[in-house]
């Protein structure tokens, strides 16, 4: 078979010549509006995950011309996804990266994605709102940094995203201010979720069914979840409401162009200190797409990497970096666990991995010796993940490992998503080595602070009690795991202390925007995807409002940074 004939989505771009893959039909196509490189589009978006995919959809629906580029392949889940952990590592961002610091991060699997749809293609679908106070954690709770956005405004955008993804969730949510009922009913509990519930009830804390972005009823061409349990290896039935099957089909229908296998290496900035487009690698060579605005949505490592790799003589420290904060304040979330064996058969591989949750320690401030909070959820590791956990975190190998693995169907676990504090020393910088595109690779440096350790210790002690109360034996703790990545281009009210403003617009370059988890000033104790998508929806609304007032670059008369932001902040 010739290269031109190949339909290997990892080898040859699929979204070309006026059509893109139809994710709902094997071998199918949908029409796609295409733009020429030399024609400046309103927005070029780098990345198509929770931030970029959502924003591409919203901006296209608002009538802007949009080209969204993704370094990864354009999959049709129904035909491309196997029920196999090894095969599905093709969803991960596995380009070369160096990880160092006192607590080096494990990258590549649960905290990255390289596909159209980004890491939402393999995320665990947990869709939680921030606790309202976290948007003002410095002022109200005494730690971290305040967001420049009011929680009541976010509450409306959360509702929009929950509706857009038909989140399945409980009728009443036990924590926080009133929220609308979730659009779709909650999924049934599996045995692993029952263990969480039993532990919570024994210790007197609330629990609930986890709000999840996977269907509990039919939706269009997508079927309800069949509980096959491969969620974090990619959903082969399209029940998962990833950006790939939600925002992106909407974006195409509204006229956006998606370019797969398109790696952006540099943002071009002109002599007026405005960006003019992006250099991207596709089909074996470099291209340049002109654009009136550039949005970087590559997640917390690739976003700062691109800004730093785009340095020029006039922007020696990288773009949008007059604050010196690009790459700094990287925040992962702690992901420690307590595991044990039940007499009962649990078979936690069935169903979404985290069907039950408690956010008790996100909302309860008494009895803590640390700032921030954590949620914990039931778990359902597949065999490779579980074996690797026993090997890496428990140090088992040899006969002990293969024997312990035969207890697989009796394992129950509780795992946190814990808040880690922003620290400038935790950061993304450029290493001297280069990748397959000739671009300098990122060096990711991470060290926990004392508060991070105290939160982890508190969670492990509490979850150990909960698992004991649920009847587990042979309990042990997994101390080293982390998950989502945020920070590195934080939003704020002060150009000296942040990279972008509340609208995700960079302080330094008014037509350069950042719209992904990078903009988080703090991470809270919940999975970030719902908040990233809510921010993207808000950003799209703000861009539309600014465009109507003639405040986007090229439309406004005043060119100074102060004037531009005085205007946008006054609305």
């Amino acid at each position, binding site marked *: 078979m010739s290269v031109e004939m190949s339909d290997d989505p990892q080898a040859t771009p699929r979204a070309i010549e006026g059509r893109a893959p139809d994710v709902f039909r094997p071998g199918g196509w949908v029409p796609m509006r295409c733009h020429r490189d030399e024609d400046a589009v309103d927005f070029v978006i780098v990345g198509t995950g929770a931030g970029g995919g959502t924003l591409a959809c919203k901006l296209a629906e608002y009538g802007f011309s949009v080209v969204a580029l993704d370094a990864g392949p354009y999959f049709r889940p129904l035909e491309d996804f196997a029920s196999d952990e090894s095969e599905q590592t093709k969803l991960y961002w*596995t380009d070369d990266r160096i990880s160092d610091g006192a607590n080096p991060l494990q990258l590549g699997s649960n905290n990255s994605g390289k596909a159209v749809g980004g890491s939402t293609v393999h995320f665990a679908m947990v869709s939680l709102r921030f606790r309202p106070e976290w948007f003002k954690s410095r002022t109200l709770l005494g730690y971290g940094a305040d967001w420049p956005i009011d929680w009541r405004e976010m509450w409306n955008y959360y509702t929009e995203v929950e509706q857009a993804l038909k989140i399945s969730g409980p009728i009443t949510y036990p924590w926080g201010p009133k929220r609308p009922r979730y659009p779709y009913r909650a999924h049934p509990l599996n045995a692993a979720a029952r263990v969480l519930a039993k532990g919570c009830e024994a210790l007197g804390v609330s629990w609930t069914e986890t709000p999840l972005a996977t269907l509990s009823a039919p939706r269009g061409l997508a079927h309800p979840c069949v509980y096959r*349990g491969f969620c974090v290896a990619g959903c082969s*039935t399209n029940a998962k409401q990833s950006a790939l099957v939600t925002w992106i089909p909407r974006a195409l229908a509204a006229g956006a162009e998606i370019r797969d296998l398109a790696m952006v290496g540099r943002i071009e900035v002109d002599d007026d200190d405005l960006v003019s487009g992006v250099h991207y690698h596709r089909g074996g060579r470099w291209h340049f797409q002109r654009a009136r605005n550039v949005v970087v949505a590559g997640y917390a490592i690739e976003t700062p990497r691109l800004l730093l790799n785009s340095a020029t003589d006039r922007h020696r420290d990288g773009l949008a970096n007059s604050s010196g904060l690009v790459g700094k304040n990287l925040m992962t979330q702690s992901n420690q666990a307590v595991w044990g064996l039940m007499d009962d058969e649990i078979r936690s591989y069935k169903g979404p991995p985290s069907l039950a949750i408690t956010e008790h320690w996100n909302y309860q401030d008494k009895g803590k010796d640390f700032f921030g909070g954590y949620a914990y959820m039931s778990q359902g590791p597949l065999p490779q993940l579980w074996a690797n956990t026993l090997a890496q975190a428990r140090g088992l190998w040899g006969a002990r490992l293969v024997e312990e693995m035969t207890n697989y169907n009796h394992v129950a676990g509780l795992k946190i998503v814990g808040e880690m504090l922003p620290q400038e020393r935790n950061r993304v910088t450029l290493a001297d080595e280069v990748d397959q595109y000739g671009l300098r690779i990122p060096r990711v440096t991470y060290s926990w602070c004392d508060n991070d350790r105290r939160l982890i210790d508190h969670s492990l002690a509490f979850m150990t009690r909960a698992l004991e109360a649920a009847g587990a034996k042979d309990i042990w703790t997994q101390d080293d795991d982390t998950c989502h990545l945020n920070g590195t281009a934080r939003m704020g009210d002060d150009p000296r202390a942040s990279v972008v403003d509340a609208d995700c617009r960079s302080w330094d370059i008014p037509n350069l925007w950042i719209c992904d988890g990078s903009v988080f000033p703090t991470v809270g104790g919940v999975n970030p995807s719902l908040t990233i998508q809510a921010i993207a929806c808000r950003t799209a609304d703000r861009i539309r409002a600014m465009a109507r007032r003639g405040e986007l670059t090229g439309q406004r008369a005043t060119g100074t940074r102060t004037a531009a932001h005085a205007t946008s902040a006054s609305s």
Partner: protein
Amino acid sequence: MHDRSRPPALPNRYPDYDVLAKRNGESWNDKTREVIAERLAVTATPLFFSASEFLLLEAIAARIVPQPSSRPPIPVAALVDRKLHADVADGYRADGMPRHRDAWRRGLRALEAEARAAFQRPFVELSEATQDELLRHAEAGELKAADWGGMRCEDFFKRRLLHDIVLAYYAHPTAWSEIGWGGPASPRGYVRLDVNDRDPWEPAEAEPGREQEAARINRHVR
């Protein structure tokens, strides 16, 4: 200290269960069939490693995931070899670690040098207990031969050797049957999710002394 050199005492908890009996059923989609068929066709001829490297890797894999002699072995070393041949990476490495292919070559060379320095014999000729002893020293960060270069032996042991070998073993259907996992599940999925609940297409766990009952059920898992 735990004696790692003993063979595994594997209870036959899922007698007569073979996850591959499901491969033509509703739990396997075409893509899964294609991927697993490729894996099952892997032969014990290296494509990435040299013949001597491959022998050493086989000896190490036998210590990390010892296998019972009662069934055909999982070709763990060959599966690791294929992953490296296909250049499948993890997406990160510790400071001082080479990329995965170079790390494996260097790590094997260093382990061989350590064996010869400490015991005057190639690694593959050492007793299982001695092989384990050497691997424990690597795990503990105690090996310092010049061949390691800037790579810490504990990083190689944990992040490369242990990681890749364990994942290779549990990528194989034989291992899935051994632990009673339902296996691939698209599009059929599961219905019975609750405590002690089991779909007819999942294996039954044997209660001690009642293996025949479970075996009878498991022979019909499709």
